[in-house]
């Protein structure tokens, strides 16, 4: 299951709805034993595009780390792809597919593009 973080405003209702959809999709995937990738914007992990988007992106990253721990025994993985502005969506999708196929990588955040270099670790 590949879940792209939606663009949300700074309205809490939108944030909660976005996180709830991610939870429901992730729970269903985990129950089916499917691996999961969340796709977020690099800038949102650093809070550069507003509080709403930052809460969603950073919330998904933390949730991915916890879900990854829970999937170890059952053989499913959870990872995050974080892309920089201007990245070709097909490139993002290719990396997400690759992570879904790999059983060796879990709980990781893969950054595409250079925007994170020299910045805070998520």
């Amino acid at each position, binding site marked *: 299951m590949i879940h792209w973080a939606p663009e949300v405003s700074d309205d809490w209702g939108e944030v909660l709805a976005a996180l709830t959809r991610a939870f429901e999709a992730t*729970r269903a995937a985990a129950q089916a034993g499917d691996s999961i990738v969340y796709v977020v914007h690099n800038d949102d*992990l650093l809070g550069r595009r507003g509080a709403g988007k930052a809460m969603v992106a950073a919330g998904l990253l933390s949730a991915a780390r916890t*879900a990854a721990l829970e999937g170890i025994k059952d053989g499913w993985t959870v990872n995050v792809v974080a892309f920089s502005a201007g990245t070709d969506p097909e490139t993002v999708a290719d990396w997400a597919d690759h992570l879904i196929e790999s059983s060796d990588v879990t709980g990781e955040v893969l950054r595409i593009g250079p925007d994170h270099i020299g910045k805070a670790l998520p």
Partner: protein
Amino acid sequence: MNGVVVVTGAARGIGRAIAEKMAATGPLTVIGVDLAPELALAEQITPVQVDLTSQEGPAAVHQAVEASGVPLIGLVNNAGITRDSRLVNMSDESFRSVLEVNLGAAYRLCTELAPLMSDGASIVNIASRAYLGNFGQYNYSMSKGGLVGMTRALALSLAPAIRVNAVAPGLIASEMSMAIPEETRDRMVSAIPLERMGTPDEVANLVWFLLTPLSGYITGEVIVVGGGRSLS
């Protein structure tokens, strides 16, 4: 320092330690949210009992700040709950309630109170080491990660007037951790390099530092108080 500091979840544990530490420090007024009047130990602590997840809750805190008659110099978002279970078994209600209390209430209160804050004010969000991932806490971990994201975004949008940081406690001796079965707790302690649980006062000391001008060049950071557990 002279002014008012708002502390949520001030009735017990880490929140109570923070409220008491602030009340003992200089000419400060502390508004303790979720604090029953009979539990307010120091006279500088004004108890306010509201539901921060309601529309009216943050507005009531706003009114209490204005009624204090002194500038708002600090906000500590500490209120939090847990509803643990494995992701595959987690109910919609467990998910939603944890997100609403741990993240939504903190965000609403920041939004409500930021316009009241004076230059040089400081917000401290109490996250958790669980933001790095913790088995059986998908909801809690997501809420605390969200709090970290909110911290970073507000640190950027409220600069240079207001600093915003997060503190991420690990295993702290509090009501919440004492609810963990003893055998599990002992196993958790054995994985901590400092070989013990932290105390609420040790978290309060860092929060106090982040609220004061001593930390005036620090914003947008997440500081873990976890005895080295993130390495072991």
